[in-house]
């Protein structure tokens, strides 16, 4: 799962910013000049369309991060905002189109000339690189540089943060890392072939029809071996994108400037407007919001949206609301229903819970409609092929269907209800609110919940995510959340429904789904190279899980992004996960 930074700072800041909001002067910059660009600032002007389209080049974008990057090294980052930011200074084999709305869900070739060519068994994938692509120092990019980039990303000793798709799917034959590679050119991984400087061939250990999704991963960023300093490479990543690093003070700030060796004729995707990007790290989160509203900052790079109190202020003030976008995040907040804990081993007891839930309450726990839409099933609607269905009257009875719940309770032999425990992450007030809402709603059906908070740092590794612990401590319900690494059924649904990913040692995200039929469907999908056919399989998985009431969906998450009116070419990118597509942004002079 792509990570999103949690709500720690939000929790800490809520009360005081509330006071601030009351005490401090309201209103931010009121410049609604509509000259020279076209678009008028209005609520959701960047959703599904481009706000303020413009060809004017130049200017500096000032960004801030309330924390710090995992790493600027593409082999070592995993947050959605980091992948979005990567587009400034790196290129991958394929990438997302730079367009809003449904167009953003399309993969287009970047370093490669076209999308991947698959073998019949979907285990071999071939790409041909464009000619004329160079690193920032002018040396040409070859397929070997791409191979090296993937090789080093395999070393989870040195680069612990990145995803492990290549580790899992390449036919490694024991290959560990280029740093332990005996061959002189350090390209000893046989699973990737580079017959010439423009061609690269991947050999997988099992078939995977959606390999293009792997090809867009940051790991396929080319890295010049001569400049690879391992863990220190992040101090100066060699750029292939339109911008390169001018300076990098770790933990403090860094600055990107135009890369003279990036050639627009080799890159049909990006249209870089800016001259300069300045990013400050470890900036106080409330301060970021204040600065955005006052015009002293252009963008909160983390992209999880305004702090809760600022959200309220912005939504309540029409002058501010017109600069806001409600972005869907490709994420589901839900609750796992654990069949290991009696009486939830009985499907009817599980269904009773789904019927009795107060869905509006669940939504309110996440901030009401601004926080997301009530989810009736698992797959967020943006995922290609997703189908919406409602098996338990979520929409017709949003406050809960007590009658059906009671009927299900009778069917599972607990007519007066039962008791079980519910876990949530202690530092997340929204999860606490979810647990409390469920506690209240289920009590009406006689289902008594005892709430158990756990520290979020160990939630999956030691508590809810450890099957023995969950079973021993009677954790029948466990708050959970999942965001797809990319908008595709595999990225979204496989990690949380595949029973074979469940490890006894802990660290699981699939806390409840062990259905052989689902596993088979997932295998089928992986082998399927036909996109349309594959897309039909995901909703079947979704339906099977929902029929078995192993997951209680909560909301499809949304967040409120702030779009200062002096920016141009701003739009929400669904493919990247509901972030603004930073590489397209410009500033009005």
């Amino acid at each position, binding site marked *: *799962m792509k*990570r999103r930074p949690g709500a*720690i700072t939000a929790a800490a800041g809520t009360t*005081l*910013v509330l*006071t*601030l909001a009351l*005490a*401090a*002067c309201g209103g931010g910059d009121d410049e609604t000049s509509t000259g020279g660009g076209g678009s008028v600032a209005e609520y959701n002007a960047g959703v599904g369309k481009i706000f303020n389209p413009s060809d004017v080049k130049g200017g500096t974008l000032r960004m*801030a991060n309330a*924390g*710090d990057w995992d*790493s600027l090294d593409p082999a070592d980052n*995993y947050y959605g905002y980091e992948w979005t930011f990567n587009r400034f200074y790196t290129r991958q084999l394929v990438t997302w189109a730079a367009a809003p709305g449904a167009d953003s869900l399309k993969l287009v070739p970047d370093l490669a000339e076209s999308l991947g060519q698959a073998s019949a068994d979907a285990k071999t994938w071939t790409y041909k690189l464009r000619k004329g692509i160079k690193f920032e120092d002018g040396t040409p990019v070859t397929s070997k540089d791409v191979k090296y980039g993937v090789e*080093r990303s395999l*070393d*989870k*000793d*040195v680069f*612990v*943060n*990145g*995803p*492990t798709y290549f*580790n*899992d799917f390449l036919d490694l034959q024991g290959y560990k*890392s*280029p*740093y332990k590679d005996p061959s002189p050119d350090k390209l000893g991984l046989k699973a990737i072939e580079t017959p010439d400087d423009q061609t690269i061939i991947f050999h997988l250990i099992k078939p995977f029809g959606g390999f293009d999704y792997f090809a867009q991963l940051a790991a396929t960023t080319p890295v010049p071996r001569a400049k*690879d*300093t*391992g*863990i*220190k*490479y992040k101090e100066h990543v060699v750029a292939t994108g339109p911008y390169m690093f001018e300076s990098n003070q*770790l*933990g*403090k700030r860094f600055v990107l400037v135009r890369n003279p060796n990036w050639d627009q004729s080799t890159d049909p995707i990006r249209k870089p407007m800016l001259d300069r990007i300045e990013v*400050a790290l*470890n*900036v*106080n989160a*409330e*301060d970021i919001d*204040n*600065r955005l509203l*006052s015009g*002293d900052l252009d963008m909160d790079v983390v992209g999880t949206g305004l702090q809760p109190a600022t959200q309220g202020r912005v939504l309540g003030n029409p002058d501010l609301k017109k600069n806001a976008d409600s972005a869907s995040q490709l994420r589901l907040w839900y609750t796992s229903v654990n069949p290991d804990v009696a009486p939830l081993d009985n499907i009817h007891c599980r269904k009773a819970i789904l019927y009795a839930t107060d869905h509006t309450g669940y939504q309110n726990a996440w901030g009401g409609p601004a926080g997301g839409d009530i989810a009736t099933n698992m797959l967020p609607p943006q995922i290609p092929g997703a189908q919406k269905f409602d098996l338990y009257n979520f929409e017709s009875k949003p406050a809960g269907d007590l009658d059906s719940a009671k009927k299900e309770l009778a069917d599972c032999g607990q007519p007066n209800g039962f008791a079980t425990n519910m876990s949530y992450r202690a530092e997340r007030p929204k999860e606490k609110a979810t647990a409390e809402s469920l506690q209240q709603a289920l009590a009406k059906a006689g289902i008594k919940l005892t709430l158990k908070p756990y520290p979020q*740092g*160990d939630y999956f*590794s*030691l508590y809810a995510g450890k099957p023995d612990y969950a079973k021993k401590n009677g954790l029948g319900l466990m708050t959970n959340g999942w965001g797809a690494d990319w908008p595709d059924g595999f990225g979204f649904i496989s*990690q949380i429904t595949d029973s074979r990913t469940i*490890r006894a*040692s*802990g*660290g699981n*995200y699939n806390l409840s789904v062990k259905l052989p039929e689902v596993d088979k469907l997932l295998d089928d999908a992986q082998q399927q190279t036909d996109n349309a056919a594959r897309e039909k399989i995901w909703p079947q998985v979704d339906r099977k899980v929902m029929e078995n009431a192993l997951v209680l969906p909560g909301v499809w998450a949304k967040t409120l992004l702030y779009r200062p009116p002096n920016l141009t070419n701003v739009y929400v990118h669904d493919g990247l996960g509901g972030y603004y597509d930073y590489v397209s942004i410009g500033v009005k002079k």
Partner: protein
Amino acid sequence: MVAFIIRRLIAAVLLLLIVTFVTFSIFFLVPRLAGASAEDLASRYVGRTAGEEQIHEVAEKLGFSDPFPVQYGRFVKGLVAGADYSTGPTTEYCPAPCFGYSFVTYNPVFPELLDRLPVTLSLALGAAVLWLLAGVGTGVISAVRKGSFFDRAAMTIALAGVSLPVFFTGLLSLSIFSYKLGWTAPGGSYTPLQENPAAWAYDLLLPWITLAFLYAALYARLTRAGMLETMHEDYIRSARAKGLRERTVVLKHGLRSTLTPILTIFGLDLGLLLGEAVLTESTFSLPGIGKYAVDAILTNDLPKVLGVTLVAAFFIIIANLVVDVLYAVVDPRVRLA
């Protein structure tokens, strides 16, 4: 006196070792007492989809699999003699004192600490000057004009200063003075002193005032109480009997005695502050040690936490030492032969 200082310095070194030992133990023992294994510990520092093998490797790399004495010994050796670290393709030497590498970012801790120290020092020392002047000054005037409007107003404001949390006053001040009025620098601004002294002072102005406000309040109350007591001493009456101007009596005779305990408290406060001006740094996004500490703790990053603990302990110990020595200088009755 010299022997005294030497003895205290030796004790200081021992104390620092003990502090690191205790910190280390907490990191090492507490999770294990809760039943966590080396792999459980390592799982905090890996990516979300890490496999068992990866977790195991990280546990090895970070040394969690080794017994406690080995881990601690490695740390002390690094402090004293430096250590070697693998960057992937090469090995790097981390010279003594080596505080290790962050578990999360793999950046070396000691250079980061050194880099952030001037920020905290600038913040603390600048605020200290302000709060001494403002606090002691207000306290003296309040004491001398006890019961007057100034006294009551000052003590009320002081109460507010002591009660309002720094992140509240800080964010509010930023909001008003930096963004609305544009008089002071926005959050996150810091220019090193050697680069541009004027910009350095301008950037720190609001943080200084915010931090000093809290302490000035404390010192105003302290000074006032101290002065009220001192001014009833017999030697004050003697000073007046000599025909001294009242102003001289108050400042040269009265304040001089009151300052003695206040200066010692000041030394201790400053020592503590140097270790962790956490809230102010977080509020104003200043890249100092306090903020560094918070990040370290939130991410369970042991090398960083050890580094910050050592630095903070060092300052507190030095502050105590200076205060003890200073006390002997400042109060001749306490002098050691």
